[in-house]
């Protein structure tokens, strides 16, 4: 079946512009996670959705970052007034449920470059 998809795969934007990243999770997966990965680094947790609710937004680096999920499916991560330090790969993952007992399936990521 279809895996997790993300779009765009690459995004180059000028400093100060807003960007929107999209994630389509696996159908039926209620939990959705956003991570950020800088070059050669580990995974930085950003936000978690259970259904359409985001019980934990504590990982969002600043108030320029926001995310939503609609219909228990597609999620968008929005970064306003982008800064060069926002450059990274943004990964989305989904899992069957939100308990930490389920494996996460990752999308291919969106590589964001802020010039």
């Amino acid at each position, binding site marked *: 079946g279809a895996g997790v998809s993300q779009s765009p795969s690459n995004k180059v934007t000028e400093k100060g512009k807003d960007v929107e990243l999209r994630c389509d999770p696996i159908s039926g997966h209620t939990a959705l996670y956003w991570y950020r990965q800088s070059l050669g680094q*580990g995974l930085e*947790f950003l936000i978690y959705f259970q259904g359409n609710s985001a*019980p934990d937004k504590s990982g969002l680096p600043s108030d320029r970052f926001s995310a939503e999920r609609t219909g228990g499916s597609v999620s968008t991560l929005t970064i306003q007034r982008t800064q060069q330090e926002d450059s990274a790969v943004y990964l989305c993952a989904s899992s069957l449920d939100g*308990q930490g007992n389920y494996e*996460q399936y*990752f999308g291919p*990521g969106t590589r964001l470059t802020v010039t």
Partner: protein
Amino acid sequence: GQQVMQIPQYQHVQEGEDFTTYCNSSTTLSNIQWYKQRPGGHPVFLIQLVKSGEVKKQKRLTFQFGEAKKNSSLHITATQTTDVGTYFCAGGMDSNYQLIWGAGTKLIIKP
């Protein structure tokens, strides 16, 4: 806060040598998961361990979960070039929706 420490950060091996990465949690885990990220790719789930003292094998890969459910290891026997990548452990807890991720160990095969 809850942490999972993973070592080493990098390991250089000759092809055919063995490789091991270790994870230690500050708290008891309900399960531990292992993922592999190939260069330029995204993390891919390898395996989940749930029981105390559990050992699982996948061909040349051996995964262990400690008796106290606080540590885990991944051992690769006779590495091949296809094993290149970064291996992450991630600990799950019953009380937490998050997986607590280790920093990863990058396996580099020396030419």
